[in-house]
């Protein structure tokens, strides 16, 4: 699978408390990522595909791989829908 890549020119982001706040530059829409979602976002660095992302999170959280995979898939769909993540 291809590595997951953020569309870096399309957003700006900042940490605030325990959240990552992301804003789309084209329309000013805000997104807030916390907990697992924030961890997934941080791990999308252009070097990992979905499988590597799930493996890294499973190791970090000590949770069932299936649970982590479900969280990852749900967020990846949202990120693609909002244009923050490049299509495969």
């Amino acid at each position, binding site marked *: 699978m291809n590595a997951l890549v953020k569309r870096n020119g399309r957003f*700006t982001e*900042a940490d*605030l*408390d*325990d*959240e990552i*706040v992301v*804003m789309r*530059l084209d329309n*000013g829409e*805000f*997104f*807030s990522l*916390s907990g697992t979602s924030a961890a997934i976002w941080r791990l999308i660095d252009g070097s990992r595909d979905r499988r590597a992302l799930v493996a890294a999170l499973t190791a970090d959280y000590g949770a069932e791989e299936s649970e982590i995979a479900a969280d990852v898939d749900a967020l990846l769909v949202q990120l693609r829908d909002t244009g923050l993540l490049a299509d495969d």
Partner: protein
Amino acid sequence: MSSVALQQGSHSPAPTVAQTLMQRETRVTYGEVPKALSGEPIGETSWQLQGDRFLLRGEGHHYFHYRKGHGITVERGPDADLSEESLWLNGSVYSAIASLNGLVPIHASAVAHGGRVFAFSAPAAGGKSTLAAALAGYGLPLFCDDTLVLDLSDPDQVLCLPGHKRLKLRPDAIELTGATPEEPVSKAVDKYYASPAAGDVGVALPIAELIFLEEGPNLEIEPINGAQRMVRLRGDHPAADLFAAAQHFDRAAHFAHLHRLASQIKMARLERPRDRSRFTESVALAAQYVVNGGQR
């Protein structure tokens, strides 16, 4: 209005650079002003901002022009409502001058406690002046009414400039708060200038907290965390639009600005019923929160 000295000693602290700047830049002279800054002649009760200049037109032919470094020029046409002049000068004109000089106006009334500022933000007629005035009953002096100007020149803290506006209250709010009524604000506004019972503060102080007033069935104060703090700031007030326009913000720069404010300003929401019979209770809750230094 009387001033309450917050520090011991016979000398008041010297004004900050920002206070001196605002005193200098808000000097008023009278004369002719341009009627447009950006092509189209300006319409009534609207403003234009271009480069380092700001133009506002009140009702009729009543114009206010500011240019950075040159102060304010007011042109009074024959139909100008002079009773409104100080409202324009202390309202949009003051906010624009602050904005053009890098100071951030926000829509809030505030009190001081422990050398810090507790500010209350709400939409127009949302009760922020009334609450700030009522907190005088707990010995909390007024810091500002309606507009709080923030100085961000120190990267480590957000400093607040003491209020430039006199307290304005509706007749029912005067009765509720125990403030002393003075003259009417203008012909068109059913408010009176008033002296806050615990005096006011004339020195710049760091902000402690920004508390958003909300109407609801409960009486409670809850913290606002994370992205919600940026969202709250973004929805502030026309003053926020003035600052963004004056700073020529693109979206990324505006985001960075909101992030800095949200990172350095603790925020909470105060929910309260807009029920006169529970007003005293809601003031007591706010006072307890302030006196406890922002702890519930």
